[in-house]
C-alpha cells in the first residue's frame, strides 16, 4: 500500500473539501451582489465622481468598477474550478467502484431485515417458478445474474449504474463553461461601431478600452430604418449591411434586434442608432409681390440654385442642427445678378425666436431671412442622416459554452432523476413451496425503489398465485 494515497498533502486535503466549496460559493455570491450595487464599467464614471478621493482610490485599487473582470474575482472563480477538479478526482474512484462492482447474487445479509411484505410464498416448487421470476425481473432490469445453491436460487439485478456519474458530468460542464468563457476573453472581442448610411468602415472600437480593432474586411451600411407602433413605441430597428473584401462585394445582410449577421466569424448586432444633420436642407422661398409666390427647393450644400425669377442664385453654405442654441439653421449666400453678395442665417424656428427676442431679425441683418428683397427664406427642415450603432463581437468560445450548457442539463437529469437500483431475489424451494424474498438498494430515491419492489411483487403474485399465510 502506497503511503501517499493514505495521507495526501495539506494542499490536496484542503482543496478536496466541500467546506471550501461552500465558502467559495458564498464568497462568489457576495462579490456578485457587490457588483450589482456598485455601477460597473460605462456606468461607473458618474458614480466615481461622487466619491471622496480616498474611497475612490480604494475602489479603484480593488477593481470594484470592473469587478467581474478584476484579478481577485477571477482568482475566486479559478479556486472554485480547482476545488471542483480536485473534489472530482478525489471522489471519482469511489464512484467508479460503485459503477463497476459486481456483487454476489447470493448475499444473505441483505435479506436479514427486509419487511414482511417483501416476501411471498407460493405453493409450488417447480422449475417454472424460477423461470417466471426471471422473466419478470428481466422485464424491468437489464442486467440479471443467477446463482443456484440448492435449495435456494439467487438472482441479482441492477440498473441505472450511470447515475453515479451524473454529478461528475455536471462538474465537468461547469469547467467546460469556464474554459469557454476563457477562450472568449483571450481570443474574442466585444466592440462597437457607428456607421452612417452609405458609409463604409474597416474597424470597430473595443468596448471600455477605446482601442480600434481591425476587422479584416469592410462593412457598409446601405440603409437604416426604424419603425414604430401606433402608440409610439419602437417596433423594429433594421440595418442593411454589405460586406466587402479586397474592395469586392462579398455578402449582403440584414441586421435586426434578435437577428444578428455573421461574417468571417464576427457577429454584428443591432444595438443603437442616431442621427446627424445631413448635407441638404428643405428651403421655402416666398417672393413678395402683387401675387405672392411660394416655392420649395431641396438645397444641397454648395450647389448653386437659381432664384425663381432670375434675380440671381443662392447657395447653402453651412448646415447646423443647433445654431447659437436656437435650433436648426442654415447659412445662405445670395449672388444677385448685379450688386454685392449677401450672407445670412435662416432659422427653422423663426416664429418662436422672434417671439422670444422681439426685433432680433431687424437688428441683425446677418440673421434676417428677408435680407434679399423681395424674397423671404424659410427653413422647413434639415434632412438628417441616420447612423446605425452596431455591436461587433467575436467569441470563439461560444460553441464550447453551448456544449457546456447541453452537458450540464444532461448531467443534472442523470444526477436527480436516475438512481442505481440493485435487487437481490432469493427463491427458497422446499417441501413443495417456494418462498420468494426481495431486497433492494438504491443510491438515491429510496421511495421510488420501494414502489418498484411492490410493483414487482404484485406482478409475481399475479402470475404465480400467492398462498395466504394463516
Amino acid at each position, binding site marked *: 500500500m502506497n503511503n501517499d494515497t493514505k495521507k495526501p498533502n495539506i494542499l490536496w486535503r484542503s482543496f478536496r473539501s*466541500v*467546506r471550501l*466549496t*461552500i465558502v467559495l*460559493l*458564498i464568497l*462568489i*455570491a457576495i462579490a*456578485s*451582489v457587490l*457588483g*450589482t*450595487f456598485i*455601477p*460597473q464599467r460605462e*456606468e461607473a464614471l458618474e458614480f466615481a465622481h461622487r466619491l471622496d478621493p480616498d474611497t475612490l482610490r480604494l475602489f479603484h485599487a480593488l477593481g470594484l468598477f470592473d469587478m*467581474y473582470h478584476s484579478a481577485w474575482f477571477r482568482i475566486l472563480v479559478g479556486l472554485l474550478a480547482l476545488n471542483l477538479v480536485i473534489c472530482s478526482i478525489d471522489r471519482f474512484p469511489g464512484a467508479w467502484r460503485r459503477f463497476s462492482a459486481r456483487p454476489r447474487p447470493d448475499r444473505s445479509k441483505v435479506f436479514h431485515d427486509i419487511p414482511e411484505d417483501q416476501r411471498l410464498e407460493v405453493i409450488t416448487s417447480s422449475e417454472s417458478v424460477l423461470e417466471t421470476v426471471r422473466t419478470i425481473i428481466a422485464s424491468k432490469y437489464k442486467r440479471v445474474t443467477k446463482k443456484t445453491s440448492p435449495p435456494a436460487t439467487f438472482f441479482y439485478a441492477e440498473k441505472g449504474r450511470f447515475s453515479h456519474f451524473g454529478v461528475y458530468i455536471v462538474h465537468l460542464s461547469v469547467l467546460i463553461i469556464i474554459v469557454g*468563457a476563457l477562450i472568449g476573453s483571450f481570443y474574442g472581442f*466585444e466592440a462597437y461601431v457607428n456607421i452612417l448610411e452609405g458609409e463604409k468602415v474597416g474597424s470597430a472600437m473595443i468596448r471600455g478600452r477605446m482601442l480600434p480593432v481591425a476587422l479584416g474586411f469592410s462593412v457598409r451600411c446601405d440603409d437604416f430604418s426604424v419603425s414604430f*407602433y401606433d*402608440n409610439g*413605441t*419602437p*417596433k*423594429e*430597428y433594421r440595418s442593411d449591411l454589405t460586406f466587402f473584401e479586397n474592395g469586392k462585394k462579398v455578402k449582403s445582410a440584414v441586421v*435586426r*434586434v*434578435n*437577428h*444578428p449577421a455573421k461574417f468571417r466569424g464576427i*457577429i454584428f*448586432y*443591432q*444595438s443603437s442608432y442616431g442621427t446627424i444633420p445631413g448635407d441638404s436642407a428643405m428651403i421655402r422661398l416666398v417672393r413678395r409681390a402683387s401675387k405672392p409666390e411660394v416655392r420649395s427647393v431641396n438645397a444641397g450644400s454648395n450647389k448653386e440654385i437659381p432664384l425663381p425669377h432670375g434675380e440671381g442664385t443662392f447657395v447653402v453654405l453651412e448646415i447646423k442642427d443647433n445654431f447659437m442654441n436656437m435650433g436648426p439653421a442654415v447659412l445662405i449666400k445670395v449672388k444677385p445678378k448685379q450688386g454685392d453678395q449677401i450672407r445670412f442665417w435662416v432659422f427653422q424656428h423663426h416664429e418662436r425666436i422672434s417671439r422670444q427676442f422681439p426685433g432680433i431679425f431687424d437688428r441683425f441683418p446677418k440673421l434676417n431671412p428677408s435680407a434679399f428683397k423681395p424674397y423671404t427664406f424659410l427653413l422647413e427642415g434639415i434632412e438628417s442622416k441616420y447612423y446605425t450603432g452596431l*455591436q461587433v*463581437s467575436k*467569441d470563439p468560445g*461560444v460553441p464550447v*459554452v*453551448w456544449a457546456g*450548457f447541453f452537458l*450540464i*442539463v444532461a448531467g*443534472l*437529469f442523470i444526477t*436527480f432523476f436516475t438512481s442505481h437500483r440493485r435487487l437481490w431475489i432469493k427463491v427458497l424451494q422446499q417441501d413443495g413451496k417456494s418462498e420468494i424474498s426481495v431486497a433492494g438498494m438504491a443510491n438515491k430515491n429510496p421511495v421510488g425503489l420501494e414502489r418498484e419492489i411492490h410493483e414487482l411483487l404484485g406482478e409475481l403474485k399475479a402470475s404465480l398465485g400467492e398462498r395466504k399465510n394463516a
Partner: protein
Amino acid sequence: MLNSTILSYITFVYFGAFFFYLCMMIMGKSAFGKVATLFCLIGFVGQALAIGLRWYESYKLGIGHAPFSNMYESLIFFSWTIILLYLIIEWRTKNKTLGVFVSPLAFLALAYASFSPSINSRIQPLVPALKSNWLISHVITCFFGYAAFGISFGLSLMYLIKRMGGDRPQNAFLKLLPTAGILDDLNYQVVVIGFLMLTLGIITGSVWAHSAWGSYWSWDPKETWSLITWLVYALVLHSRMVRGWRGKRMAFLCIVGFCCVLFTYFGVNYLAGLHSYAKS
C-alpha cells in the same frame, strides 16, 4: 379588457382558498380543506382561461404575442405556476396543509398585479428586443423555477413551525402538519425541480442574450442575481448531499434562497440594467 377583469376576480378566489385552508388548520376540519382545494381549482382553471384569452386578445389587437412580456403578465404567470405546482403536490401527497402557506403567495402576486397603481395591465406591443422565439421558453422555465422555490419557502416555514411546536404538539394546526422528516424530504425534491428549471432558465436566457445583446453573459444585474440565486441553491444541494445538512439549516438556506429569488424578480428593477422591460 376582459382578461384583466377576470384576473382581478381570481385574486379573491385565491384569497378564499387561503381563508378555507386556514379554517381547516385552525379548526381541524377536513371539509374546509376540500372547499379550499375547490377554490384553488376554480382559480387555476379560470386563470388559465384568462391567460389564454389575453393571448387571443393581443392577436385581435394586431400585436399578438405570448402574454409574458411585462411585469403584469409575469406576475399573472407566476401565481398560476405556483398554484399548478401546489395542486400537483397536494394530489401526490394527499396533504392539504401546504396550501395555507402557498396560497397567500399566489394571492399576493395576483393582488399586486391587479391592484398596484404602478403596474400597467394593458396589452402592449412587443419591443424589438423581446421579439424572439426564446421569450416563451425563457419565461416558462424561469417562472417554474421561481414557483418551485416559492413552494420550498412555504415548506421551510412549515418545517420551522413544526419543529418549534415540539414532538407532541397540542394544537390542531401543529398536529395537522406532516412530520418534520417528510417536510424536509419534500423540500429537497421541490428544490431539485426549482434548481433544474432555474438552470434551464439561465441557459435559455443566455442563448437568447447571445442573439439579442451580442453576448451570452454581460453581468446585467438580473443575470447576476439569477446566478447568485443559482449559487445559493447549489449550496443547498451540496450541503445536503455531501455534508448531510438537513432540517433547520436546510430550511434557513431555502428561505435565504427565496429572498434571492424575490430580489432577482423585483429588487433588480431598482438597479439599472438591460432587463428594463420587466419593470412595469
